[in-house]
């Protein structure tokens, strides 16, 4: 029997005959000490041999397994699919593969990390190799690799990446979207509105005299107001609206498929509700008002930044007209 690394054609004769028995023993001991399941079936899918790894992990009695159909010995196997796969190995004389990423496992085997992973069975990469013996008999060698660790870490990684993606979109204090994500959303909504010729409106709002509020009640009082105002406004929005913290005490709302009349109505509701809602901090009542600017996308804006500029100008106008009010960008023209 040639060494596994020996090229098939040229060097075969260099292995002396006397070593054949020794080589056989070495091969069989390697097979039995591998941390990989090895199972060989014949052309009728009856089990010919298996290694110790499988004996230990399946808890089945070897005597009952050898000679049995693989589908009787392992009733959990998807018979129709796997038969077709095994046929391809025999017929095309090519290897075939099955990764845990497509099928978590084929064989229901317990794994060695029962506590630290959430799956019941060992995650597996299976390889099906064609084997042809000198007498032209065909067999299939099935290698079953335990990839529970890789699978576990991959899942953890994906979970963490999803968490990071979420964190990168959220403003830490108010738990609404941060400026970057808000602006990305606006860019997308702008493109959508232009492509499908849909309406799009923006509201930008600013807390009135916020610096004074911070001076009177301390920054923690100011933070509490930012959090409460954010929550209050969030409750007034539709699911398709995107609400973000634009700057320190400045907020912005994207309103897809909304004209300026709708946006003004919402802006006025926000203005009114915040003005009549008392915020309490350390047993003190804080009265807060906001100024809001509204703009609807028209044919004039060449990009989404110009829509922000329009809305911001309206907000500035609302401030200069005495605060606690809504101003529409069209009034500025």
């Amino acid at each position: 029997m040639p060494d596994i690394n020996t090229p098939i054609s040229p060097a075969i004769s260099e292995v002396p005959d006397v070593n054949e028995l020794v080589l056989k023993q070495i091969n069989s001991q390697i097979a039995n000490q591998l941390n990989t399941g090895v199972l060989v079936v014949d052309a009728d899918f009856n089990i010919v041999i298996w290694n110790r790894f499988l004996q230990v992990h399946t808890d089945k009695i070897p005597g009952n397994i050898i000679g049995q159909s693989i589908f009787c010995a392992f009733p959990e196997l998807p018979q129709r699919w796997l038969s077709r796969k095994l046929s391809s190995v025999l017929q095309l004389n090519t290897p075939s593969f099955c990764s845990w990423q497509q099928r978590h496992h084929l064989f229901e085997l317990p794994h060695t990390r029962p506590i630290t992973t959430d799956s019941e069975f060992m995650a597996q990469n299976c390889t099906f190799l064609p084997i042809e013996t000198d007498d032209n008999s065909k067999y299939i060698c099935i290698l079953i690799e335990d990839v529970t660790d890789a699978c576990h870490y991959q899942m953890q990684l994906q979970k963490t990446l999803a968490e990071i993606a979420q964190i990168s979109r959220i403003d830490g204090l108010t738990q609404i979207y941060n400026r970057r994500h808000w602006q990305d959303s606006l860019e997308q909504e702008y493109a959508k509105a232009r492509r499908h010729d849909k309406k799009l409106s923006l509201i930008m709002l600013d807390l009135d005299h916020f610096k004074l509020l911070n001076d009177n009640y301390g920054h923690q009082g100011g933070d509490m107001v930012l959090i409460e105002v954010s929550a209050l406004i969030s409750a007034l929005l539709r699911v398709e609206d995107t609400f973000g913290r634009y700057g320190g005490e400045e907020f912005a709302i994207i309103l897809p498929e909304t004209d300026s009349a709708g946006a003004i109505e919402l802006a006025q509701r926000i203005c009114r509700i915040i003005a009549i809602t008392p915020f309490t901090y350390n047993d003190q009542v804080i009265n807060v008002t906001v100024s809001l600017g509204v703009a609807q996308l028209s044919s004039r804006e060449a990009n989404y930044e110009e829509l922000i500029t329009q809305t911001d100008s309206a907000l500035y106008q609302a401030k200069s007209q005495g605060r606690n009010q809504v101003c529409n960008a069209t009034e500025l023209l």
Partner: protein
Amino acid sequence: MNEFHLTEDQQDCLQELINIAMGQASDQLARYLDTFVYLKVPSIESVAAKDLMKTLSQQKNTMAVVSQGFFGYEGIRGEALLVYQEEGSARIADLLGYEPDELSQDEQLIDISSILTTTFLNVFAQQINNQLSYNAPKLLPNIQEILSEHLQQMPFTWDLALKVNINYQVTDYSFNCNMILLIPETAITNIKHVLDRILEEF
């Protein structure tokens, strides 16, 4: 012309070996899939890594790419990329003889890729008196962004590769895909030796 380019004789020889392998592969595939499999005349050319990335990422409608590494004796190794378009991939489960609900689309793509790659390369290996082993095939996610990244992270580094492009068609199942074999610089030198040996024998 440099050491990694094939001479005209070498190129002809490789072309001939690939033609023979394609004939045998298409015959074997037809028997297994029980339908005619057409393989178009292959194109063989040297490509620079950066140009390849450009052409691949510019290909329109690319839905998926499956990659599978191969390696054999005498330093023959490389990577096969199977490139699929949306319109040629609707009935793969059917073609493979599976029920559609038996396997996901990802698995269908991986399975057919593995069959096409290994069947062709096995017969090609026989032509050059070699035997190949294969990595498990991998579906590359998000093709547009990932492909160039993937090409940079292949198990071998290369600036220049020998590129063999073979188109597979199964008209009965409206199936169509491209197989791109990439053989990196060091392996080109090795394949040149093999080709020279075969040329000498004639």
